[in-house]
């Protein structure tokens, strides 16, 4: 049993678990330093092809462009709100690229990078934030669930879906095309929700093939991580009976390697894993938030030095894996993407007011049909009026 020493105000947790360290502490799995130096890890080391790394880099650059473009579109009044992923590109691309087509991802409202990996047209994300719909992609086609705004609810959906995979006999068969897993995304704030903790319990109890992917971006709107937990989040997994790992969420290589290993473990039938991707929310919570009210710009400046894209770029350049031609072409591609979003967002038409009656039920119940028809008549009564 761990001895918990008593301090003046109760046990000194730093003595038990080590100090909370802004660099993620010694447990942090890292394969690429902030300076772009390749490091190695006993458990999660991995070889990457040049092709793969250039792919990650491209994904991250384009994802960041989607993000900055969307933030600007909100400023121009084209979007009602936007939840920025700035700073979290490696966590999302690393984990998203570790998914196989048959795996299923359950996002929060900030998983634009994962959406990109699942092949979603970013305009579909803009539709939601513009307010023309509440989710317009086909989850069955993309294996990407609707964005979930209720904090933590989707962790249970990921677990339930994984229980379905078990019942379909699509786990532990050894067939790489068949064996599947789910990944449930959530934030550090969400880790306090009952649903997330219940998801841990269910997943452990049934040994479900689910990976819990927590992006600890240090903030839940204005509340710092310390308000949610006095121990590193990944250590909570142990109490639920499955492994937890803290990975450098600004390191795309490490995130890929760790997620890949956890997904494989799940697909093989060895059960859930909690991954804590240690990262930072560089932007505001959303475009309506003002982070200067609650955090120091010094912290933000420190985290800028750990930028997830800069370190891959440094590594690729130093090793001659990209050249000017590559980066120029990528800039053009990003510009084109930005242009497509700017033009496309204006084409996202408002739904007809009567469409609100669609899809409440499989079939419109008679009394609801009456309500719709009455409203249609009411609307029609204004036609021709000035």
């Amino acid at each position: 049993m761990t001895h918990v020493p008593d301090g003046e105000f109760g046990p000194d947790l730093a003595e038990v678990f080590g100090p909370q360290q802004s660099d993620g502490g010694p447990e942090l799995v890292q394969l690429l330093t902030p300076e772009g130096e390749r490091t190695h890890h006993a458990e999660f080391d991995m070889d990457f092809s040049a092709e793969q790394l250039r792919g990650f880099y491209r994904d991250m650059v384009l994802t960041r462009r989607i993000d900055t473009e969307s933030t600007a579109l909100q400023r121009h009044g084209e979007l009602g709100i936007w939840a920025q992923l700035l700073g979290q590109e490696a966590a999302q691309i690393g984990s998203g690229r570790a998914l196989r087509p048959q795996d299923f991802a359950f996002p929060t409202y900030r998983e634009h990078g994962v959406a990109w990996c699942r092949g979603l047209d970013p305009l579909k994300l803009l539709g939601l934030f513009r307010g023309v719909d509440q989710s317009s992609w086909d989850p069955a086609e993309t294996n990407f669930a609707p964005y979930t705004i209720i904090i933590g609810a989707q962790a249970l959906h990921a677990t339930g879906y994984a229980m379905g995979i078990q019942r379909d006999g699509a786990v532990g068969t050894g067939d790489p095309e068949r064996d599947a897993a789910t990944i449930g995304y959530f934030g550090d704030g969400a880790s306090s929700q009952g649903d997330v903790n219940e998801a841990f319990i269910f997943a452990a109890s049934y040994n479900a093939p689910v990976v819990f992917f927590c992006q600890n971006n240090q903030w839940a709107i204005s509340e710092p991580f310390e308000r949610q937990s006095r121990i590193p989040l990944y250590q909570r997994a142990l109490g639920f009976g499955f492994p937890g790992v803290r990975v450098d969420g600004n390191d795309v290589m490490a995130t890929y390697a760790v997620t890949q290993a956890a997904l494989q473990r799940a697909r093989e039938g060895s059960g859930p894993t909690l991954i804590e991707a240690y990262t930072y929310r560089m932007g505001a919570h959303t475009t309506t938030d003002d982070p200067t009210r609650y955090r120091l710009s010094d912290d933000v400046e420190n985290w800028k030095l750990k930028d997830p894209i800069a370190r891959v770029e440094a590594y690729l350049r130093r090793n001659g894996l990209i050249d000017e031609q590559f980066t120029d072409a990528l800039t053009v591609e990003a510009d084109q993407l930005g242009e497509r979003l700017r033009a496309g967002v204006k084409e996202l038409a408002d739904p007809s007011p009567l469409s609100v009656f669609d899809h409440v039920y499989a079939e419109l119940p008679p009394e609801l049909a009456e309500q719709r028809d009455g409203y249609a008549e009411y609307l029609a009564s204004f036609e021709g009026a000035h």
Partner: protein
Amino acid sequence: MTEKMTLAKALNAGLRQAMEDDPKVLLMGEDVGKLGGVFRITDGLQKDFGEDRVIDSPLAESGIVGTAVGLAMRGYRPVVEIQFDGFVYPAYDQIVSQVAKIRFRTQGRVAMPIVIRIPFGGGIGAVEHHSESPEAQFAHTPGLKVVACSNPVDGYWMIQQAIASDDPVIFLEPKRQYHGAKSEVDTSATPEPLHTSRVVRAGSDVTLLAYGPMVRTCLSAAEAVEGERSVEVIDLRTLSPLDMGPVVESVRRTGRAVVTHEAQVNLGMGAELAARITEQCFYSLEAPVLRVGGFDTPYPASRIEEEWLPDLDRVLDAVDRTFDF
């Protein structure tokens, strides 16, 4: 094929039939496996269908409903048992924010064919939280369907129809009648559609509206005044959507209506029914629509629950009052 069954047995037989008909049907809940549920509604089903289809869940209602959502997304049809009415609230968010809205959110792409079975209502001498009637909270939520069975025949058919529904259904079972009177259930009959109300006793002076446990109370009330007053009783069966057809037809004939339920009166089903009857039967009404239900207090300690619950006398008192106008 007919067989005499209690409500509990009829529900059990209905669940068994649904599981035989569709391998995607799963049962989930607390103690539903070996024990067969605290009311034995799932008795013997785990033995016959296995632990993968009759799933004893960890003790967390949000977890049960939330994982059912994921299973539904994977193509399953989960039937969830909430052990008692008062324990549905930990799952309230998953029911209202997810189960009810996912079809709408996804523009019809993702269905939620989930049945949430809730033993509801009082009269069993239980401690707090075991006797409640939360139906209005769910009927108020677009995207959910809400039904209540009142007898073994309906129990047998309605549970199968709810499971076959592509919409989520809150399925209310009058727990005090589980092990009560038996009825002949004809398992080869053709049932009426799920979302229909039905006249269960014809009359011409006044219409009593009831569902779940109050149907029996209202039938006894009608019998008690036979010869004096001719009382029509309607078993609503479906609370969302409401089936106003039989109600309107009846009240236009009788000119008087009393809505009854165990749930508190304030903003209950009776409020909605009174409003709709007023809108649709205004010129036929001889008296305002009256409501008889639980008082607007928390459910009481069991020694006074029979006082608190609307009984035959309180129903008849309301009937009398409709003749004072």
